């Protein structure tokens, strides 16, 4: 699978991922004699080092260059958000850097290829599954559906009208189709939220949040056993599918 990020520092690198799911300072954060992390576990040398964002002293740029001259630098860097210190270090040390990637979706040990000119991250051993998560709004309330016992993923949990996108389908069409199948509500989306990634075993789910406005009461098919109109705030206390809150946030709810 391929994830599109942003090209920051050019070059191509292939290596095993090392994830540090936090902000990181190269000055003090890594032993410059060994490449061993001082915060978190692992050695960054030759790895695809994935962390959220650079922080700390601007001397960190020189630390990256120093690691490179000792052959202890990472092969490539993946950030959620690039900033000045790490970008400077990556460019001067010729280390490819791609940002705009959900670090949450990566695991240490994943095989990864980044291209710092096109901004792509390739994860050859992982399968991408794109799904839609459709939320119907009626006034101040949103429609949540309870998944039936027969569902293989997340039975009995509350969520939106959701399902896999089919080949050639965009999030608008997929969400409208799923909504009609699951609730008999016939509507077109009013908003498509920014997608995000959820990590599974051997799979990364790319979730597209989709908003509908409708007044109709749903008629459920076999996939769900109950429904409720609730305020977005009340959904926090319910047993929901993973990261439903992220869907709501990205739809401005």
């Amino acid at each position, binding site marked *: 699978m391929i994830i599109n990020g*942003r090209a920051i520092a050019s070059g191509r690198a292939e290596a095993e991922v090392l994830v540090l799911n936090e902000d990181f300072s190269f000055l003090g954060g890594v032993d*410059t004699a060994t490449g061993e992390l001082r915060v978190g576990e692992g050695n960054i040398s030759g790895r695809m080092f994935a962390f959220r964002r650079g922080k700390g002293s601007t001397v960190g740029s*020189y630390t990256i260059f120093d690691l490179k001259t000792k052959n202890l630098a990472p092969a490539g860097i993946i950030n959620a958000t690039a900033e000045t210190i790490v970008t400077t270090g990556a460019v001067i040390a010729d280390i490819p850097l791609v940002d705009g990637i959900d670090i949450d979706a990566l695991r240490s040990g994943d095989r990864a290829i980044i291209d710092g000119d096109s901004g792509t991250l390739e994860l050859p051993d992982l399968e991408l599954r794109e799904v839609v998560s459709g939320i119907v709004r009626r006034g101040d309330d949103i429609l949540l559906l309870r998944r039936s016992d027969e569902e293989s993923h997340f039975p009995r949990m509350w969520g939106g009208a959701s399902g896999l996108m089919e080949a050639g389908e965009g999030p608008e069409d997929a969400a409208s189709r799923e909504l009609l199948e699951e609730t008999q509500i016939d509507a077109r989306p009013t908003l498509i939220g920014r997608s995000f990634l959820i990590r599974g075993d051997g799979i990364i789910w790319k979730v597209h949040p989709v908003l509908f406005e409708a007044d109709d009461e749903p008629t459920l098919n076999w996939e769900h056993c109950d429904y409720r109109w609730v305020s977005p705030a009340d959904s926090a206390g319910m047993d929901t599918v993973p990261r439903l809150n992220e869907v709501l946030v990205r739809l401005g709810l």
Partner: protein
Amino acid sequence: MNLSAAEQRILDGEEGEGARKALELVVALGKIYGAEDLVPITSAHLSGVSYKTIGDGGIVYLEHVSQGAKVRVPSTLNPSGMDSVRWREMGVSEEFAAKQLHIIDLYGSMGVETSCSCTPYLAGNLPRKGDHVAWAESSALSMVNSMVGARTNREGGPGALAAAIVGRTANYGLHLKENRSPTVVVEADIDGSLFSHSLLGQAVGSRIGNGIPYFRGIRPDWEEAKIMAAAMAASGAVAMFHVEDHTPESSEHSTEGLEVINIGDEELKDAHESLSVVEDVELIAFGCPHLSMREVREMAYYLEGKVKKSDVKVWFCTSRQVRDALPKEVATLERFGTVLADTCMVVTPVEGLYERSASDSAKACNYLPTLCSQKVRCDSFQTLMEVVM
């Protein structure tokens, strides 16, 4: 990003590997902040000079970059870790000195002016209104943005060097007029002394972070503005300020609807107490930012005929140009302490020499505890000089 034909040629390596690499860095930094193109610069001011701050990693980098690159615009250096001439008197080690002089030589080999000061605008590197420049050193870049109306972002050391090498920087942030508007109005009620400007800067920076204040109630001269700008950049991340009816761009923006904050005696007292934690000190240091010619003259005038009676060390930090220009005044100050050029109390290895130090600069008093492990006293020039007389 949209690159001109000339910029593309540099990126294709037609003007050498050094220029290509520098442009790559300028472009990468611009990408992060959404710059659409690059803008030509008329000067650069570089940080990353003190061996204490850049370390051996910095030297390795400068050795690498200096092999194939020269700066294309007038470029100056920030203070180094020692006085290039009087470092032995400062107690700096031979090893530190050798590495420091090597760093300065490396910059010199790229065509950078090698006198080291945080007030380059008082020593020949003064942009004009509307000029785009690439300046590091938080106090100096705030001064040229604010008091001159030149345009620069808060550049880091390697970014500013790369910009100097290609004569361009990424066009975003404070290079664009729409980002130079004030974000908050500050009604200042202070006594107008130099030290009150230092504390005003401390109080404002810690309240507004990286905002752009619009001051009413003050008319700072260059000396007052520089100590205030330095404090705001250290306690916050202020890169630009306006002063009503005073700074060159103050009339070009509206303040309508902005939040107003009042800074008076109480706020200054809080700022003072937050910085000053000890009474007795071993070192008193002035000149953060570097003392101007006028300040050195005024200090000499004040100290003329007085006698030092204590063994507390006193440093007067200034630029090489000022020290060379005022031998008589420097001789007066030397009866009380050491007049140092090219360096300052923050970037020199003070921690190996002293444990408790004092300054009139809020910026110095922000950094001395963290960068130099000092316990600090913050007071005015006169108050601190009375300690030694």
